[in-house]
C-alpha cells in the first residue's frame, strides 16, 4: 500500500497518495466534496479513498459549495482537519463568502485562539478544451485575502509534498491544482520533502533573464527556455510554488543574477500575481534591473470559449516575445 519512495507517477496519483497517507496517519483528517466518494472525484484524485476509509471520512456532499466550505469550517472548529474538493475553479464562487469572510478571518477575529486547518483543493487553469467556468485562474482573489495561504504545485512530487504540508498547516490553505498537468507523469521522490511549503525553486538555472511562473505555466516556461537556447539565450525558470506568501528573497536573488524578469501566468495580467512580483522587485532591487519586469498572461476578458483559449493563454511564442522585449532594453 505504501508507494515506492522514488517512482514515476501522475499528479493525480501523487495527490491521491498524499490524501491517502494523511487519512491514514491522522483520524481527524476528512475528505469532502461533490462526487469525491464512489466516483473518486471527476478527476479521480480521491479514487478508492472512500472504499478504504469509509463514508464517514470521505464524504459525498450535497451540491452546494457554500455548504461544503461552511461545514468544513464548523468541523475544523470541532477539531477536524477537512480537505475540501471544489470540482472546478469556476465553482469556487458560491463558497467565496465562507472563504473570505469566515475562513480567512476567524483566527484573527478570535485573537489567535481559533485554528482553521482547512485545505481547499481547486483544480484550476485552462488549456483543456473545456466549457465555461472549467478553465479559470482565480488565485489573485485569494492571495489578496489576508488569512489564507495560497499554494500551487507544478510537478507530481511537489503535489504530493505540498498537499501533505498544507494538510498539516494550522491555517487555511487554498491549494490550486493545475488540471492541465494532472496526467503528466514525472519522477517523484516520496521519501522526503524537497522544500518548505512556501519556498520558491529554481527549476532551470540561467544567466540572461528569469521567467517567473507557477502551477501550469512552469512547464511552458521550461519549454520556452529550451527554445531560447537556439537563439543563444540562457533563461532561468523560477517556480514560485506559493502565492501567499511569495518567496521574494528567492525572486530577488534570481533577479540579481539575471537582471531581467518576465512573469507568466494564465490569470489575467491586470491586478494579477505578476503585478505584485513586478512591484515588489522594483521596490527591492530597482538598481539591479536592466529592464522593466514584464508580464505575460490572460487578457481583460472573461475566459473565452475553448476554441479561442489558445489565443487567450500564454504560449511559448508569447513568452519569447516578452523575452525579446525585455532583452531589447
Amino acid at each position, binding site marked *: 500500500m505504501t508507494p515506492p519512495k522514488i517512482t514515476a507517477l501522475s499528479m493525480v496519483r501523487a495527490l491521491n497518495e498524499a490524501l491517502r497517507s494523511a487519512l491514514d496517519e491522522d483520524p481527524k483528517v476528512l475528505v469532502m466534496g461533490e462526487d469525491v466518494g464512489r466516483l473518486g472525484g471527476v478527476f479521480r484524485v480521491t479514487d478508492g479513498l472512500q472504499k478504504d476509509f469509509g463514508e464517514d471520512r470521505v464524504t459525498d456532499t*450535497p451540491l452546494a459549495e457554500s455548504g461544503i466550505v461552511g461545514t468544513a469550517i464548523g468541523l475544523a472548529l470541532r477539531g477536524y482537519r477537512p480537505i475540501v474538493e471544489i470540482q472546478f475553479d469556476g465553482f469556487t464562487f*458560491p463558497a467565496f463568502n465562507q472563504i473570505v469572510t469566515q475562513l480567512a478571518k476567524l483566527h484573527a477575529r478570535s485573537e489567535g485562539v481559533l485554528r482553521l486547518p482547512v485545505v481547499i483543493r481547486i483544480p484550476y487553469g485552462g488549456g483543456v478544451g473545456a466549457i465555461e467556468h472549467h478553465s479559470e485562474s482565480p488565485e489573485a482573489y485569494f492571495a489578496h485575502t489576508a488569512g489564507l495561504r495560497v499554494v500551487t504545485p507544478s510537478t507530481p512530487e511537489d503535489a504530493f509534498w505540498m498537499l501533505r504540508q498544507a494538510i498539516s498547516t494550522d491555517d487555511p490553505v487554498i491549494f490550486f491544482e493545475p488540471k492541465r498537468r494532472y496526467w503528466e507523469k514525472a519522477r517523484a521522490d516520496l521519501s522526503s520533502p524537497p522544500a518548505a511549503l512556501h519556498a520558491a525553486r529554481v527549476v532551470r538555472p540561467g544567466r540572461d533573464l528569469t521567467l517567473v511562473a507557477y502551477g501550469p505555466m512552469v512547464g511552458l516556461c521550461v519549454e520556452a527556455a529550451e527554445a531560447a537556447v537556439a537563439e543563444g539565450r540562457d533563461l532561468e525558470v523560477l517556480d514560485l510554488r506559493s502565492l501567499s506568501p511569495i518567496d521574494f528573497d528567492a525572486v530577488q536573488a534570481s533577479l540579481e543574477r539575471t537582471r531581467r524578469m518576465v512573469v507568466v501566468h494564465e490569470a489575467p495580467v491586470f491586478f494579477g500575481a505578476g503585478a505584485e512580483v513586478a512591484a515588489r522587485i522594483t521596490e527591492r532591487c530597482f538598481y539591479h534591473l536592466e529592464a522593466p519586469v514584464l508580464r505575460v498572461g490572460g487578457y*481583460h476578458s472573461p475566459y473565452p470559449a475553448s476554441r479561442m483559449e489558445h*489565443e487567450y493563454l500564454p504560449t511559448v511564442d508569447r513568452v519569447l516575445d516578452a523575452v525579446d522585449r525585455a532583452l531589447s532594453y
Partner: protein
Amino acid sequence: MSTDVADAAGGEGGAPVRAHEPELVQLLTPEGERVDHPAYAIDLTPAELRSLYRDMALTRRFDGEAVALQRQGELALWVSALGQEAAQIGSARATRRTDYVFPSYREHGVAWCRGVDPLSLMSMYRGVTNGGWDPHATNFHLYTIVIGPVALHATGYAMGVAKDGADMAVMCYFGEGGSSQGDLSEAFNFAAVNNAPVVFFCQNNQWSISTPYEKQSRVPVYQRAAGFGFPGVRVDGNDVLAVMAVTRAALDHARGHNGPVLVEALTYRMGAHATSDDPTRYRLAEETAVWERKDPIARLRTYLERQSLAGADFFAHVDAEADALAARVRDGLRSMPDPGPTEFFDHVYAGQHALVDEERAQFEAYLSTFEETTR
C-alpha cells in the same frame, strides 16, 4: 402505477425506499394506458399528440447525434437529455411564446420547442461561444453552467413581470442536485414573498453526476415548496401528457397572480452525466434497465398505436425527419467556423473600456508580427 415509479426511484440505487412515497401525477402509464387523475385533465387532438411524439423523437435523435459527434471530436462536451424527453417536451409545450424560460444546461428538448436551433446549442458545447443564441428571439435564456444562480434570475425576472402587470409567466429549470444550492432556497423564498409568477421546474433525474438523490435531501423536492408557502406537485416525468397538464396548470396559476409553483418531474438520466463521465463507476445497469421500461417515447408510441392515432407512415415520416435533422446537424457542425482570434475582446463591456482597447491593440500588433515573419 404511481408507486411503481416512486419505488424504483429509491430502490435500485441501494438507498432505502421511503415509507410514504408521495403521490405522482400520471395520465399515461409506462404500458401506454391512458388513466385519469382527479386534479389534472388533458384533452389533446390526435395531431397534438402526434406532434408531442415528433418533438420527443427529434430531440432524442439530435441529442444522440451530438453524443456521437463529441466522440468524433466535433464537440468539447455534450450533456445528453436521453430519457428526459417527456419532462422537457411536456413542460416546454405547456409554455406560451410570451412566457420566458430559464434553462440549466441540459434542456435541449425545451430549446427545440422554443425554436432554438440544435446547432446553436452545439456551438456552445463545441467551444465556439459561451452563449450561442439570442434569448430575446425565443424567450429562451442562455444555458448556465454554474448551478444555482439562475433560480434567482428567474425569480427577479418574474418580479419584473409582476411589476409590469404583463400577462406571462416565467419557467425555471433545475436539477434535483441543484436543489441543494442555497440560491434555490433563496429563490423559493423571494418568489413566495413577492408572489412572483414563476414556475420552478425540477427534473429529478435521480442523479447529480455520481451522487444519488438520497445524498442531496431527505424530502422529495416538491415538498420544499410547502415550507416556503407555495404549492408543489410531483409528476411522472416520463409521462408527457401528465407533465404538460401539470405544467399548464402551474403556469396558469402563476399568470393568474397566485404566485410561484414548484413542479418536480420524476425522471431518469439514462445516459452518462456528460460525455466525460463513466456511470458504470457508480450505478448499476439493473437500475437503468428498470427505467428503460418506463421510456417516455415508447410509452406514447404504444398509446398512439393502440388507439390508432398514428400509423406506420407517421412513424416512418418522423424517422425520416430525424435522419434529415441528424444529417443537417452533422454537416452544420463540421462546417461551423471557428471564432476569430480576437473575438473574446468584442463584448466584455457594453461601453468603451480603455484597458480592453489597449490589450486588444497590443494583441493585434503581436499577431501581425507573426503574419510578417511568415510572409
